[in-house]
């Protein structure tokens, strides 16, 4: 690898001019967003600096425990983010199912990636393990969030339809099928669209990173294809697990709708 061109601190600071331009525009147009822009820029900067130091430390002190700790933090963050993003209060059982589906689905995909597709060496090599885990968990989080909203919304707006199906002798599984399928569809659609636009509409972050670090574009796309497939698999798996167990929390043991 040729390595990347180093950016000096001064050069980096010069990039903040884009934010200054943005601030000037919103001030001029009297759009009350200055505070949010400044906070977002600061947060982005501070978070990335911290992550930079943290990853440097982890890369230099390669240890299975560090990789696992980072993985656990990402999982916990993702699960709580899903809880937070749902506008409707969820019951405990549903929350438990979200956590279990996220962890099982993403771990399965991550380890398949690790031991079959790429063969990290060692298996916890933080240079591979952490960014790939991040992409898999992050995308699955978005998918499950969409699935949760669609499922809750479906059961509230189509309650009568579900009850009608039960009155005609349907099992809860059959009565919920249309809602479950629709939820799966809305959860997986962004990922599918993402694949369609890949490489034409945008160069994904991972590929950009690999190219910038000096690898040939052909090597970069191999990683990108593999990771896209992994992400799609993980989103599908976590969402299916969530929906399969999740819909059941809307029924009681007597095959009645709760609430």
């Amino acid at each position, binding site marked *: 690898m040729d390595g990347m061109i180093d950016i000096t601190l001064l050069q980096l600071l010069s990039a903040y001019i884009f934010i200054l331009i943005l601030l000037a525009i919103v001030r001029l147009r009297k759009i009350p967003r200055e505070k949010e822009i400044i906070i977002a820029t600061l947060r982005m900067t501070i978070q990335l600096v911290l992550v930079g130091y943290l990853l440097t430390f982890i890369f230099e002190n390669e240890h299975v425990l560090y990789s696992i700790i980072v993985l656990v933090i990402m999982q916990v963050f993702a699960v709580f983010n899903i809880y937070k993003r749902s506008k409707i209060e969820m019951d405990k059982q549903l929350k438990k199912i979200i956590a279990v589906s996220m962890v099982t689905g993403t771990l399965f995909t991550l380890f398949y990636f690790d031991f079959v597709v790429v063969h990290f060496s060692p298996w916890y090599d933080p240079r591979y393990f952490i960014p790939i885990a991040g992409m898999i968990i992050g995308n699955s989080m978005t998918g499950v969030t969409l699935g949760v909203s669609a499922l809750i919304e479906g059961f509230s707006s189509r309650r*009568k339809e579900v*009850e*009608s*199906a039960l*009155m005609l*002798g*349907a099992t809860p599984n*059959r009565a919920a099928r*249309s809602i479950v399928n629709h939820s799966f569809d809305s959860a997986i659609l962004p990922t599918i669209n993402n694949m369609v636009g890949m490489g034409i509409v945008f160069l994904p972050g991972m590929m950009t990173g690999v190219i910038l670090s000096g690898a040939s574009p052909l090597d970069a796309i191999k990683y990108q294809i593999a990771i896209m497939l992994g992400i799609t698999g993980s989103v599908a798996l976590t969402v299916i697990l969530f929906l399969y167990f999740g819909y059941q929390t809307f029924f009681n043991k007597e095959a*009645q709708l709760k609430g």
Partner: protein
Amino acid sequence: MFTLKNVSYKNILSIDNIEIKGQAITTLFGESGSGKSTFLKLLNRIHTNESGEITYKNQKISTLDPIQLRREVIMLPQEPTIFKGTVRDNLQIGLEFSEKEKKEDQELMKLLESLKVKKQLDDDGKELSGGEKQRVALGRIMLLDAPVYLVDEPTSALDESTETTIMDLFINFIKDNDKTAVMVTHSKEVAQKYSDEVIYMKNLMVGGATHGRND
């Protein structure tokens, strides 16, 4: 067919003792808010009574499998659902839910005609008018050929002459095939004309409900 003893449900319903006979048509008649729909939903376990005991064919319904029970005791709710799909899909879907064999188009067309629904099987269910929806939903449950029917205001969206045609059709279907029906209505004429037995329901209290016989 059913017995209800000391049955209560929330603040809606309280029943001392009622028996619903098999192979007969029982009508629940009373003002709105008197728990008629809730009464029906207790019989197929869409709701569970908070106290008391309900039996179906001498078995406590709490011991029966709710899905099997609902395949025998089919209910038509007051605002029937038209599912996504064609008129054909909507007629067949009950058979699918109940895991029964689907019917041939010919039989479905005949049914549509007798229900006076002037639509084709391939027409979109969304195009049905309010009254047609109600009749398609009624046709859907008739196809299921269940021993017991719970029907909630099956003709509320129909004009008087269509109401008579449809009621006659449904009542004959029940009587000719020795089925049992429990029917909710707010129409005194319907209650008197079609029922073997009438249960008058008042707000909050059905206890000691007046049973009228109409032979």
